[in-house]
């Protein structure tokens, strides 16, 4: 297993958000985490990388227990995280944004350079010196993904990459994600858009009100329209 999460429980202040979340991701696999707005997708990701202070449970990444590791150590061990709100550094140029994400090469994981990433996202290559604040939403989304890949991760948590993007950009995004997958990077992608998820994922989990309520292959999900209709807004 690349990543396995057991009994993950998270709180924000007095509010209990996640209940006994269990997830598994295999080597080179793309897994979708599906659910409505507010179901707990982002909190799950934030909890895995240690950005939620109050959480319990066990997170094992590449055989190592990282439950108690600080965020930067988890990320450095090869678990990349692309946040939902993009959070690019608006004062920094495209190249500087990538520089923040740069980490040393890791054995057995694909090595990304700015040139490779500009080939993956040609738009970015045309605006290397532009400050992040003066980019479109789609360009910013590409930049966040590229920035995380600069850390040469072996697994990426991708939080709602298609949110708010035009269909044309979504197509580019799908192509890019498939390229990353082909390079051997495992991906967990959270999505509300089932169509988008189906094009890139091998398996899916559905999360609802902080609980995992379905787990299976995409075909198994298609065989259960009741579950799909109950938990996903289409």
């Amino acid at each position, binding site marked *: 297993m690349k990543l396995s999460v057991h009994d993950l429980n998270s709180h924000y202040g007095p509010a209990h958000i996640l209940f006994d979340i269990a997830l598994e991701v295999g080597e080179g696999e793309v897994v979708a985490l599906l659910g409505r707005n507010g179901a707990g997708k982002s909190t799950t990701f934030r909890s895995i990388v240690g950005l939620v202070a109050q959480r319990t449970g066990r997170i094992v990444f590449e055989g190592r227990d990282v439950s108690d590791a600080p965020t930067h150590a988890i990320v450095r061990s090869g678990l990349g995280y692309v946040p939902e709100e993009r959070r690019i550094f608006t004062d920094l140029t495209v190249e500087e944004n990538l520089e*923040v994400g740069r980490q040393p090469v890791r054995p057995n994981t694909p090595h990304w350079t700015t040139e490779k990433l500009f080939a993956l996202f040609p738009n970015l290559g045309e605006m290397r010196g532009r400050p992040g604040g003066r980019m479109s939403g789609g360009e910013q989304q590409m930049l966040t993904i590229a920035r995380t890949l600069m850390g040469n991760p072996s697994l990426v948590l991708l939080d709602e990459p298609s949110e708010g993007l035009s269909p044309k950009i979504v197509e580019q995004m799908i192509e890019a994600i498939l390229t990353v997958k082909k390079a051997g990077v495992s991906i967990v992608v959270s999505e509300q858009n089932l169509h988008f998820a189906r094009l890139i994922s091998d398996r899916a989990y559905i999360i609802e009100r902080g609980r995992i309520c379905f787990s299976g292959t995409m075909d198994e999900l298609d065989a259960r329209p009741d579950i799909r209709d109950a938990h996903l807004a289409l």
Partner: protein
Amino acid sequence: MAFYIVQFLTGLASAASLFLVASGLSIIFGVTRIVNFAHGAFYMLGAYVAFTLTEQFSGAIGFWGGIVVAAVIVALIGVLVEMVLLRRIYHAPELFQLLATFGLTLMVEDLVVLIWGPSDLLGRRAPGFRGAVDFFGQNIPSYDLFLIVLGPVVLGILWLLFQRTRWGVLVRAATQDRDMVAALGVNQKWLFTSVFAVGVFLAALGGALQIPRDAVNHALDLQIIVDVFVVVVIGGLGSIVGAFVAAVLVSELNAFGILIFPKISIILVFLVMAAVLIVRPWGLFGKQEAPARRTPGLTVNPWRPLTSGERLAAIAALALAAGLPLVGGNYALTVGSEIAIFVIFAVSLHFLMAVGGLASFGHAAYFGLGAYGVALLAKMAGLPMIVCLLLGPLLGCLGAAVFGVFAVQLSGVYFAMLTLAFAQIVWSIAFQWVAVTGGDNGILGVWPERWAASPSHFYWLSIGIAALAVIALRIIVFSPFGYALRATRDSPLRGEAIGIDGKRIQWTAFVIAGTVAGIAGALFAYLKGSVFPDSLGISLSVDALVMVLLGGVETVSGGVVGAIVYKALNIWLVSRTDLSKLVLGAFIVLIVVAFPKGIVGMLETIRNRRRPKLSKPASLTSRIETAE
């Protein structure tokens, strides 16, 4: 003409050190969000260490080596401070961070005297820059020319550091979004430590470079920090270019202000600062911050008026206090009066901080204005005491009304820095306007009239007024005005959305707090029989802050307890040790790190834990109004 050019060049030379210190403060604030009050102390340490190195080790490392090594040594001390102290309080409210670093400043002041002695030290001239350059008949020290060149050179080096190195990119990224930098695998801890080291290095270098120009003494820290606060408020906190431009501006204003208003040149700086704040509240090169972190709010223990039982207890305590003349001698009564006066002062600041969410670092200004008001009325106009007591505090009220207009434009650390600068300006006026205020000699002979002259009568007067002040402020807290003020504190935007004019409400609270502080000052003038500029000084402002913090900033009347405990402790401490600043500073740091809720806050927490919810919840909830 040549004279003005020389004056201009002198101003530029002074700007160099100011820029170094201010840019260090800005860099540290940008990443850690801490306004490092101890920056002045590091500046001073830089000067002292450089003095020792250039005097005693100049054979080994030379003068310039001594300057650089001094800055490195102080930077290492800074690293130690960051790792031991600041790492514990990065998530504390900004007020606590300011206070902790202020405590550090106090400790350094005493330590410096312990190590280097109390007298001024005159440093060496810099080799190669001993002479002066003739400029159309005017002399310019060649060292000044060196400093004039150095400023832009350092600015350039910093620019390269931030634009062209990976470290600089990480620092700029962290200035914008610390968590995201961590989520990209960067260890924030070491980034923060390195940033702090660079900032302290700049401050210490600024201090070390001053030794050929000025004598080194143990009051340098407060002098420079006030100037630096003015610089970063004008230039914009977090901007290095802003620090440079504002440092030049302030230094030139000082250089030429002396020609125009020889005694009170600081007024010119103040006028410019006020103008900048009106046009650009975040400074010339600053950016508007996202709404600041909430000041210590009260989510755990909602406020409520006293129950009838608690009221009886308060009255009993007051009656007990009123009985002091039966058992205590004159000394005890004088101490008692002083404590009562400080209760008034502390509750006025507590009102501003806890209810208004505005942490003033210059509250002594209004205390001192009240005291000077009384002294001037009594000595110059010869008015009777009761009239003086009624009119004197109006000077505090007036001062608060004027400064408040500017202060409430800002919030958080900007507010704290601005109020501190205001207080320092009032202090310099009192210090320098000798004709009216007597300057350092103060105004003497302000004695109470016969009806209040005996210690017991004055004591009763003091606790009577203290009780009235506490009651009046409590009534305000639970009045519609108090609700509006708390709404503005907790969420200015939501307050505006329901029709509360937040700035006006905050201004009113500022004036109320200033007036009450003025009342305390008025009584203080009569208690001491004199007024000195100390009554406006920073240390008095900080005393008040510590009292509030000690009492608990999340409480309604914690200031009362804080004032009694702190003042009693302080009077006892000063009588026992010469190192009162060292002990006091350590005490402040300890409170911030270990007891951030204060005495009353801690008692309330303990009581709430002991008494679970089952006890009469219905009757309680009807009275409780939550803060959110």
